[in-house]
C-alpha cells in the first residue's frame, strides 16, 4: 500500500511538469501579448501610448525573452517563492487574486460532490434493485430531465424561484452585507442560503449520470454468483445488497472525486457567470480574453494540480476500497 502511494506521488512530478509546460504554452498561443491587446483597446478609445514607454514595459515584463526563458522565470518564481507573477489587468500580484477564487471553487465543488453522492447513492441502489418498477421509472425520468436541461436555464429558474418566493438576494455566495465581512454564524447561514442554488444546478447532471452508472453497475453485480452465496448464508436482503454488490459497484462514486473538479471549472463557467459566483471559471475566462497571461496561466496550472490531487485521492480511496487494485 505504501509502495503504491509513493509510486503515485512520484509519478505526479513529471505529470505536473507536463501540465505546467502545456499551460504556459497554451497562454502563449494566441498571437500578440497583453501589451498588444492593451494597445488595441487604448487605440479604440482614441488614446496613444509612447513607444518608449511600451518598450520599457516590454523589457520589465520580459515579453521579448525567448519562450523557454520566460517559462523558466515563471515556474521558478512559483516553485521557489510562491510568486505567481503579476496580473496586468488587475494591477495586483496574481497570488492575491487567486486564493479567494480557488477557495470558493473548492467549497462549491465539495458541496456539489456531497450533494451528488447523497442523492445518487440511494436512488441508484433503489433503481437497480427494483428495476423496471414505477419508482425506477420516475427516478429515470427525472434523471434524464436533469441531464437534458441546460445548467444555465436551471440556474435562472432557481434564482427566479428563490427571489420570488423566498425573497432572497440572488447570485454570488453571500448577501451584500456579508461580502468581505468576518466569519460569523450569520455569515455561514448566509452562505448556506446561497450555496444551495449552485449546488443543485451544478450537481444535477452529475447526479443523473451517477445514478445511471450505479444502476448499470449494480444490475451487473446483482446477478453475480457471490450474491447468491451471500443469500444462501442467510443474510437479510438489505445486508446482502449493501455488503456485497453495492460494495463493488461503489467504485465509480470514488472515481467521481477525480472528475468532478475539472468538470466544475471548465463545464460550469456559464453557470458561474449566470449566478455571479466568485469561482475560478469567470475570472479565468476574462483573463484569457484579455491575454492576462500570468493570471490565466496560474489558474490553468492550479486547476491541473488540483485535478491531479483529486485523481490521487480517488485512486488511493479506490485502492482502500478494492483490494484487487491494491495488489496489482
Amino acid at each position: 500500500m505504501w509502495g503504491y502511494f509513493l509510486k503515485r506521488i512520484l509519478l505526479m512530478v513529471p505529470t505536473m511538469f507536463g501540465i505546467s509546460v502545456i499551460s504556459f504554452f497554451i497562454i502563449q498561443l494566441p498571437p500578440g501579448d497583453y501589451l498588444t491587446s492593451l494597445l488595441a483597446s487604448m487605440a479604440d478609445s482614441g488614446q496613444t501610448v509612447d513607444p518608449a514607454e511600451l518598450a520599457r514595459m516590454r523589457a520589465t515584463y520580459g515579453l521579448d525573452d525567448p519562450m523557454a526563458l520566460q517559462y523558466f522565470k515563471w515556474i521558478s518564481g512559483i516553485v521557489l517563492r510562491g510568486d505567481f507573477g503579476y496580473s496586468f489587468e488587475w494591477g495586483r500580484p496574481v497570488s492575491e487574486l487567486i486564493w479567494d477564487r480557488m477557495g470558493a471553487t473548492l467549497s462549491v465543488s465539495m458541496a456539489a460532490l456531497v450533494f451528488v453522492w447523497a442523492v445518487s447513492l440511494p436512488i441508484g441502489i433503489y433503481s437497480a434493485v427494483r428495476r423496471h418498477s414505477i419508482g425506477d421509472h420516475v427516478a429515470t425520468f427525472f434523471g434524464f430531465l436533469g441531464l437534458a436541461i441546460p445548467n444555465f436555464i436551471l440556474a435562472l429558474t432557481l434564482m427566479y424561484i428563490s427571489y420570488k418566493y423566498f425573497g432572497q438576494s440572488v447570485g454570488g455566495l453571500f448577501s451584500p452585507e456579508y461580502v468581505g465581512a468576518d466569519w460569523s454564524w450569520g455569515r455561514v447561514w448566509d452562505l448556506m442560503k446561497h450555496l444551495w442554488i449552485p449546488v443543485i444546478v451544478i450537481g444535477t447532471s452529475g447526479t443523473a449520470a451517477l445514478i445511471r452508472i450505479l444502476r448499470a453497475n449494480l444490475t451487473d453485480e446483482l446477478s453475480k454468483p457471490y450474491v447468491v452465496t451471500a443469500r444462501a448464508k442467510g443474510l437479510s436482503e438489505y445486508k446482502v445488497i449493501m455488503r456485497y454488490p453495492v460494495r463493488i459497484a461503489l467504485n465509480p462514486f470514488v472515481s467521481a472525486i477525480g472528475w468532478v473538479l475539472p468538470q466544475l471549472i471548465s463545464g460550469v463557467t456559464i453557470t458561474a457567470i449566470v449566478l455571479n459566483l466568485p469561482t475560478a471559471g469567470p475570472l479565468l475566462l476574462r483573463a484569457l480574453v484579455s491575454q492576462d497571461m500570468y493570471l490565466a496561466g496560474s489558474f490553468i496550472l492550479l486547476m491541473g494540480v488540483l485535478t491531479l490531487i483529486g485523481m490521487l485521492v480517488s485512486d488511493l480511496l479506490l485502492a482502500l476500497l478494492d483490494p484487487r487494485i491494491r495488489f496489482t
Partner: protein
Amino acid sequence: MTQLEMAQPEMTQPDRAQEPVLTVRNLSLDFHLRTHILHAVREVSFDLYPGKTLCLVGESGSGKSVTARALLRLIDAQAKVSGGEITLHGPKGPLHLHALASNSREIRAVRGGRIGLIFQEPMSSLSPVRTIGTQIVEALLLHRKMTKAEAKAETVNLLRQVEIAQPEHMADRYTFEFSGGMRQRAMIAMALACDPDILIADEPTTALDVTTQAEIMDLIARLQAERGMAMLMITHDLGLVAEVADHVAVMRWGKIVEQGPVDDIFHSAQHPYTKALLAATVRLDTAVKRIAPNRAGQPLLQARGLTKGFGATNWRGKKTYEIKAVDDVSLDLWPGENLGIVGESGSGKTTLGRMLLRIVEPSEGSILWHGDEGAEEVTQMQRPDLARYRSAVRLVFQDPFASLNPRMTVKQVIADPLVVAGGMSDAALDTRVAELLELVGLEQSAMERYPHAFSGGQRQRISIARALALNPRVIIADEATSALDVSIRAQVLDLLLDLQKRLDLSFIFIAHDISVVRYFCDRVAVMHQGRIVETGPAEQVCTAPAEPYTQSLISAVPNPDPRDRRMLHRTRFNA
C-alpha cells in the same frame, strides 16, 4: 453375497437414517417470461436421507439447478413455485419451506443454518473485495451464538478441516489470491460453517481439473461421513454420479424421468432417456478402437524443442523472472493421425496449440511442415507462406457461444476464410458454403440465420464448417467438445471422425477429458507443467500409463460404473 452386503447397513444404521431429512413432493416451478409462462420444473418429488447422497442428473436446461435453489427459495423473481411441498424435518417438527415468504426470517435461518449451498463458479462465488475469513465469520455470526473472536478461531478451524494449508494466514487473504480448487474449499468451509443437515452441491467440480475434482470430492465425502449430512448433488457428469451417489434422479425437460438406487440406474435403467444418456457416456469407454494409421512415412508436422516463456524484463532489458508455459516440447503428427494432448489447466496445452499455428510466437524451437511444397520451417515463414500454412492448419475453439460473431450470418461466418483468401465469385461462395453445411450435417437453410438461433452442438458444427472451408490438412481442436452435453459430445466426435475419413484430415485434439481422448485419438501426449511427460498409443496411456503423473491423472477420472469406483482409491502424485 450381494444380498448380505445390502442387508447389513439396514441392521446397523440407527432409526434416524430411515427418516428423510427433506421431502419434496410434486414441486412445480414456473418462469413468468415476458411473452409466456415456462414450466421449468413439473411435479418433481424426491427425498434426502441423512448421510446419503442424491444425485440430480440431466443435460443443460433440464431444470436441475433451479430445483435445487428452490429448496432454499433462492430463485429469481420471475420464477414462482406454482405447486407442491418442500418439507424440512427436524427435532422441532416439520418445517414447510414452500409456504415461507422468500425473504422471511424463518427461511433465512434455514439458509446456511440447516441447508448449505456450494456451486459451480469457484471464481466468482465469493466476493473479491472481502477476505475469505470475513465472509466465513459472517456466516458463523448469523447462525451460531459466538463472539467475533470465537468466530475467527472457528473460521481458522474450518479452513483447516477443508485442508487449506496455513489457515491462519489464508483467512486474511482475498479470493483472487486463491486457486480455483482452493476457492471451492473455502466455499465448502463456508457452507459447512454452521453444521447444516443438508448440503446442496450444484456442479461443484465442473470448472475444475480431474485431479482437483477428485480431491474436492474426497473432501466432501469425508465431511459428509463425519457429520452425517444429506447431500443433494447436481451434475451432468455420469462418471461422477457413479463415483459418489447413493440414489440418482434423472431429469429431462423439467421432469424426473427415473429415479432409484445408483446401481439400478446404471445397470438396469428403465427409461429410454436414461439408457441413451448412459450409452453416450459409457460408449466412449468401450467403443471399438480406431485402427491407427501407418506411421512409416514422413510426418506431416514435426515440432522440436518448442518453448514459450512468459516473463518480465527490467529497464535494462534483463529478465527479472520467467515462467515457461511450454518447455522443450517435441511432437510429430503423421497424415491421417489423431494426436491427443491432455493435461490439467495451466499445463501449457493451449499455448502449445497456438504456437503450432504461430498465433503465439515460440521463444525457441522449430516447427517443420511437410505440405505440398516440401519441407518448410514454420517459424521462419513470412506473410504469404504463413497465410498458406494457416489455411492448411486450422483451429476449432472450445466455446461455440463465443467463437462465432453474433452479428454475422452463418453464411458470412463460414465464407469468411474464403473471402479472406479471395478469388471466389458470389455464386461460387454460395455453393461452397452449402457444400460445407451439408458436410457437417446442417440444412442449407441455416445460411441466412444468425448463430444465436442454434444450439451449442449446432454452433460447434458451424465452427467446424468454417475450419473446413479452405480444405485444411490438419485441424487443431482446442477443447472442442468440452462445452457440450454428453449426448451432443458423442455426435460431434463422430462427425469429426467421419470428416477425417472423407477429407483425409489429421487432428491435434487438445482436451482434459480422458474418455474423449481415448475414444478419438490414436496417440496421446500427456502434458504437465509445460512438459510432455508421456507419449504413447491412446489405449495404452489411458489404461496402463507408465509415468506416475499420468497414473495419478488417469486414476482421478471418474468411472461411470458404481460397481467399480476408482476415483476415491486413486493414485496420488506429489511433485
